[in-house]
Structure formats: structure tokens, C-alpha cells
């Protein structure tokens, strides 16, 4: 296997990882600050993708589509926070799971009701289509490189937001002590709505960005949701840094596992069988990764120790 192929696969893993980070960051923030398990986060990803596809389809502008995705997802997030989620902060995890599970049902079927059962079209903008040649002669799609850049920029922005701004201080205070931010004179319910909308917007952004290279369809959020949960659990719930590291780990494991495990199996198996068992193992690999991490560190890589 050539080194070019390996580098290309690492880039692929990285791109997958940073997109997972966009999902996981919101999820982990919401859990860290509000203590809420939000299964409906994947629905916000879907909302973003559908909004982008609808607006880009009408206006022909991908950028407008992206903006629409951000607004629609943030708006949807703020609405469900104010109508439903707000009543669940003090509830048991179990009630949160059920309520947000119910939200998934409503969002998925609602979207199907509005947009129909067929996938929507969303294409990457012309300016970003096609491959570029990287140093070393690697041909790599420009759009995917852009995704990596956007993901890293968002990560940087989040870090700055949390470490360097007033809202960041409030968020960190909220993670440590929910009562304290009330004492600091912060309007908690406004802060929570804001954080929820921020998380939702990130999910919507991911949905729109990824929707352009995948298919925009009902149910697209659920597999990503499960992966995002895997990411934040590996990283340690509530930790943005953990989500970042976890996302890259999961992205790389999934991509590289799918490529290299069958190759590895071919060393001691007949090719067809190696292909089958290798890819079977690859599909389980991230769950094994998560299992191992949790057995080793029951609160994830960067989670609070008990």
C-alpha cells in the first residue's frame, strides 16, 4: 500500500472526525452545562441539511443554504429548548431519554410530511468542486479539505469562546456549579437557551456541510447521533477538548479500520473471506474502541474523575 494512499486515508479520517466534532461539541456542551441527554441532536443535524437543500435549491446559492441551515437549526433548537427541554433539566436521565426520543419521532415524520419521502438534492458549490493536488502528488477533493478547515476553525472558535469570553466564563461556571451561575446574576434560562441554540446550530452546520456530499434524507441524523455519543463518551462528557480528541479518534479508527483490517486479514486468510471478516470487524471497531476506553477509564479520556 502506497504512502500516498495512506496519507489520503488519514485525511479522510480527519475530515470525518472534524464533522463528528461539530455534532459532538454541541452534545457535550449541552450535557456539561445542563446535564441533559439530548437524543434529538441528530434531528437538528437533519433540519440543517434540509434547510440548506431547500434554500440552496430555491436560490442556487450554497452559501445562503449554509446560512439557512445555521438559522433553521438554531431556531429549532431554541424552540424545543423553550417548549420541551426546559422542563427536563431536573428530570431523571430516563425521562430525558424518553422525551428526546419522542422528539426524534416528531422531527423525522414531520420532515417527511413537509418534504416527502425522497431524498433532496444539495450539491457542493462550483468553486469548491473537484480535486486539488497536494504536495507529494496527492489528489484530494477541495471540498473535503474545506471541511477539515471549517471543522478546525470551529474548534478554535469554540475554544476561544469558552476560554476568552464572558459567556464562556458563565458556561464554565455552569459546568462546575449550577447554583453558582444563578448567584453570579446570570439569567440562567436565557443562557441555557443560548447554549442549546449554539449546539443546535453546530449540528445544523454539520448536517448542511455533510449533506452536500451525502444524501439529504429523513433519518440521516440517527447514525451520526450514535457516533457523536460514542465520541463524547470516549472524550469524557462535558469536555470540549475530549470531544475533539474523541472525534478524531473515532474518525480515524472508522476510516483506517475499514481500509486496513481487510488488508491485515488477507495476510492469513483467503481474499474474499478476509474482505468479509475484515469489514465486519471494522464496523464494530469504534464500539470496541469505546468499550476499551471505558473499561480503562470509566469516565472517558478527559472526563471528571469521581
Amino acid at each position, binding site marked *: 500500500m502506497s504512502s500516498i494512499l495512506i496519507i489520503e486515508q488519514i485525511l479522510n479520517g480527519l475530515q470525518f472526525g472534524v464533522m463528528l466534532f461539530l455534532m459532538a461539541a454541541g452534545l457535550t456542551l449541552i450535557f456539561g452545562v445542563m446535564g441533559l441527554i439530548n437524543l434529538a441532536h441528530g434531528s437538528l443535524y437533519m433540519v440543517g441539511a434540509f434547510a440548506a437543500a431547500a434554500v440552496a435549491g430555491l436560490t442556487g446559492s450554497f452559501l445562503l443554504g449554509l446560512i439557512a441551515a445555521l438559522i433553521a437549526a438554531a431556531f429549532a433548537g431554541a424552540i424545543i429548548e423553550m417548549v420541551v427541554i426546559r422542563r427536563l433539566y431536573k428530570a431523571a436521565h430516563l425521562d430525558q431519554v424518553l*422525551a428526546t426520543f419522542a422528539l426524534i419521532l416528531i422531527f423525522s415524520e414531520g420532515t417527511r410530511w413537509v418534504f416527502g419521502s425522497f431524498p433532496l438534492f444539495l450539491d457542493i458549490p462550483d468553486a469548491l468542486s473537484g480535486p486539488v493536488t497536494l504536495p507529494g502528488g496527492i489528489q484530494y477533493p477541495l471540498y473535503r479539505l474545506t471541511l477539515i478547515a471549517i471543522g478546525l476553525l470551529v474548534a478554535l472558535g469554540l475554544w476561544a469562546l469558552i476560554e476568552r469570553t464572558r459567556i464562556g466564563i458563565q458556561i464554565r461556571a455552569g459546568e462546575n456549579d449550577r447554583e453558582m451561575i444563578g448567584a453570579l446574576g446570570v439569567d440562567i434560562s436565557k443562557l441555557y437557551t443560548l447554549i442549546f441554540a449554539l449546539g443546535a446550530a453546530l449540528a445544523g452546520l454539520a448536517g448542511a456541510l455533510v449533506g452536500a456530499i451525502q444524501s439529504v434524507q429523513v433519518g440521516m441524523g440517527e447514525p451520526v447521533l450514535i457516533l457523536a455519543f460514542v465520541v463524547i463518551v470516549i472524550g469524557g*462528557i462535558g469536555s470540549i477538548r475530549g470531544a475533539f480528541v474523541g472525534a478524531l479518534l473515532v474518525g480515524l479508527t472508522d476510516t483506517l479500520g475499514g481500509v486496513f483490517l481487510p488488508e491485515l486479514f488477507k495476510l492469513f486468510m483467503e481474499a474474499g473471506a478476509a474482505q468479509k471478516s475484515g469489514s465486519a470487524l471494522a464496523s464494530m471497531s469504534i464500539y470496541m474502541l469505546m468499550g476499551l476506553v471505558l*473499561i480503562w477509564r470509566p469516565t472517558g479520556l478527559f472526563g471528571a474523575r469521581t
Partner: protein
Amino acid sequence: MKLNERAINTVVLLGLLALPLYALVVDEPFTITLVTRAVILALAAVGLNIVLGIGGLVSFGHALFFGIGGYAMGILAYHAQTYTTLNLGFFSTGGTKLMPVIWLVAMTVSAIVAYVIGKLTLRTSGVYFIMITLAFAQMFYYFTISWAQYGGEDGLSIYIRNDFPGLNTLVPIQFFAICFVILCSVLFLYARLQASPFGLALNATRQSATRVEAVGLDPMKLKLLAFVISGAVTGLAGALFADLNRFVSPTMFSWQLSGELIVLIIIGGVGRLMGPVIGACVFVALEHFLGGLTSFWHIYLGVILLCIVLFARGGILGLLTGKEGAHV
């Protein structure tokens, strides 16, 4: 509303028995099948309720045991119906179509797997436990999807239901009878377990593991045993479910199914004897009637579930008895 929980329980069980009998009289066999489905789902959820309700462990991977039970049935019956040998290295068998044997295998394998997984996962708690149990179920899900020998994603079809001595299991009411008797036995076991010293200690573990440790008991061992019992019961339900459908597939391992089992319990009432049973009846009824009304029935189901969480803490039983908690 304040009704006596024991009275409600009696009414529900009697209703669960009366409906199929009525259906038998008016010759509506499908109603019997539908009630049987509710009974089996209830059984699976009763199993989950042992860890979730008494032990406070939110297992988001209980479909794992449901699936193991299903595949235990599928594999044994597959070998029996194709006259092939199942070779495990240390042991080989021609499979079987006898229900009691299948049940025993389903429960044993589920219990063993539960023991291993419990050993690995019970160190974690809260969301970590939720997710790690999910992870194990997902591993089995993906494994069975690519397990070509037993049908992979297509699953395994068993053309004729397995045998129970003295009964014709293909007759809906007779298969219902089997499932109903099992459910009642397990409910009885659950009630005894809940009131037993073990149940008391497990219940205390949920509320304060520190206290349980301070009186010299080991919460880990309590939880592990509960997990094993729970896995075995859900595994048994899985074998029955596969027999009801005469079919087993990886969807029995899916996370949606794990979620549904939790939903059943919350609808009915967490930690209550009949909570899972009431939840299963309501869920199957909603699925059947709403599904017949509109193809967008998931929206309505979602709204109903939301209302239960927001306005009926303690589930339907909590609403009816006026008591949120499970304590009798």
C-alpha cells in the same frame, strides 16, 4: 385519581387474559397474535425493569439479550430443520425444535453474556453506562449483519413454530397460553425478588451505593447478579419473540429496540411490578391503531410520549395511583 395499584394490576392481568379468549370466541385470531406480542414485549421489559427499576441501571443495550435469545432459537431450530450439525468445537448438536430446551439455552447464553458484559461495564455509571451498554449491543448488531452463515441482515426464517410437548404452538391461542403463563411466572418471581433481602439491598444500591458499602455489602456484586438475572429474562423473551414471528434478524439487536424497551417501562411506570406490562399493552395498541389511521403516526406517538414524560411522571401507573414513586 387515586386507585389501588394492586386492583389495577389484577384488572390488567385479567384483561390480558380475557381479550384473547374473547377473540377466540369471535374468531379474530389476529387479536390473539397482537396480545401475544404485547405479552412477550412485556416479558422483555420486566427483565429490563429488574436492573432499571430496582437497580437504577439504565441499560440502553438490552436488545442485546433479546437478540441473543432470538438467535439461540433461530440457530437451534435452523439446524434442526435443515438436519445439519452445529459444531462448537467442544460440543456438537443437531439443533432442536423443542421450546423448553431452546428457552434454557437462550437464558443460559444470555446470562453468561450478561455476566461478562456486566463485569466490564458496571464500573461505569450514569451516561457512561448508558452508552457502553449501547456499544456492546451495536457490536452484536454489526456482527450478526455480516454473519452470513445465519442469514446476515436477511435473518433466519423458521417456517414452522417450535414444539411444546402436548400443544400445537401454531394455534394462536395455544402459543398465547404459553407466553402468558411464562409472563405470570416471571411477574411472580419479580414480586418475590423485589421484596426479598436481595431486592431490598439492590433497591438501596440504586438510592445510595455508599450506604450499601458502609453496611458491608458489595454493590458491584448486587448489580452484577441483577444484570445476569435481567439478561436471562430478556433473553427468554427474545426466544419467544423469535418464535412468535418464526423469524430472527439483526434488528432484534438494534438500538431502537433497546430504546423501545425503556419506553415501555417509562410509559407504564418505572420499577413497578406491572409497569412494563401496561407499557407494552399501550405501546402495541398505539402502534396498531395509530398505524392504521395515518402513515405519519410516528408524530402522534411522539406527542403522546412527550405528554407522558411532561405530565405523567411515574407513568400511567403513577397517574392512576397518584403516587410517583414505586414504593408500595
